[in-house]
């Protein structure tokens, strides 16, 4: 399908948008013309810095606090962002994620639950919330930030890998369910990206990257920008690896 203008009469929401890949995605979408809700959990100053940077560049952004694992968070966050911009959310990027690395024999229930709740369950709930509006608008873009670890095993990350693999299959399944409503749902699977999250991850993985370097948040954000664009209207249920060839 083709839309008359893009971005459509809607705004974007990026979860976990205060730093790292999420911050880069928020800036990318703002540069592409979207008014962007920048969700953060605790780093208010960082989220406001992202908003300030977007506004300084002539874009529109709004920082909104919420713990994505709170079952009420999708409804309250969408309402706040939609009220602020006076537009429905027609682009959602489920980026909020955490890692609690440990080898499976010693992985605790808390480490397992925290990662599944944040990286998988919250993305499902935000997607469900977004689809209510997008289906009826007959357009929408959802991008879930997965990981190469959801496709390729990495010791010490069985919880993270399970959550990201689950997120990928959730993405594919939800995508085919709503495809004929003009809503696309895709996943981006970053490999080794230089962020706070990877600062203390097992560096052995980096030796296996064919590109022989870590990626940048901006390189991931560019791919998200494409999937959210009008040009990507026929791409749905896809997993776009952004990993320097690590998963190839």
């Amino acid at each position, binding site marked *: 399908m083709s839309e008359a203008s893009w971005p459509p009469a809607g705004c974007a929401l990026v979860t976990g948008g205060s730093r790292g890949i999420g911050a880069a995605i928020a800036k990318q979408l703002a540069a592409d013309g979207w008014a962007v809700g920048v969700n953060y959990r605790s780093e208010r100053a960082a989220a406001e810095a992202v908003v300030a940077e977007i506004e300084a560049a002539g874009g529109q952004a709004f920082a909104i606090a919420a713990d994505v694992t709170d079952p009420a968070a999708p409804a309250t966050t969408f309402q706040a962002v939609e009220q602020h911009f006076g537009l429905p959310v027609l682009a959602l990027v489920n980026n909020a994620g955490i890692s609690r690395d440990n080898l499976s024999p010693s992985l605790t229930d808390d480490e397992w639950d925290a990662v599944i709740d944040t990286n998988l369950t919250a993305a499902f709930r935000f997607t469900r919330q977004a689809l*209510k509006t997008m*289906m*009826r608008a007959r357009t929408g873009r959802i991008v879930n930030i997965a990981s190469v670890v959801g496709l390729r095993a990495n010791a010490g990350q069985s919880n993270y890998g399970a959550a990201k693999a689950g997120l990928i299959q959730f993405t594919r399944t939800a995508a085919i369910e*709503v495809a*004929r*409503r003009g809503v696309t749902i895709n996943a981006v699977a970053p490999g080794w990206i230089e962020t706070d999250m990877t600062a203390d991850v097992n560096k052995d993985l980096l030796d296996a990257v064919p590109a022989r370097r870590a990626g940048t948040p901006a390189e991931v954000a560019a791919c998200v920008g494409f999937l959210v664009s009008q040009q990507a209207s026929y791409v749905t249920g896809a997993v776009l690896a952004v990993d320097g060839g690590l998963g190839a």
Partner: protein
Amino acid sequence: MSVTKEQVQERVVEALASFGPDADTITSSATFEELDIDSLDLVELAQIVEDEYGVVLKGEDMKELKTVGDVVELISTRAA
């Protein structure tokens, strides 16, 4: 909220027509199967009904509904 059966009928026909079938084929006795209304359409219809009439139609409710008249009857009864 007070809503007449005629108002519900009108809104349901409008919603169903947005899913594809011609409005004049959407009669009370028409089945969803005949109209080519599938499960995703019914989920969206349930969403509209919940937003506009505050009536929550669950999956098990929807399974029992075969015709346009069934859904109009259920919504009218619950919204009353």
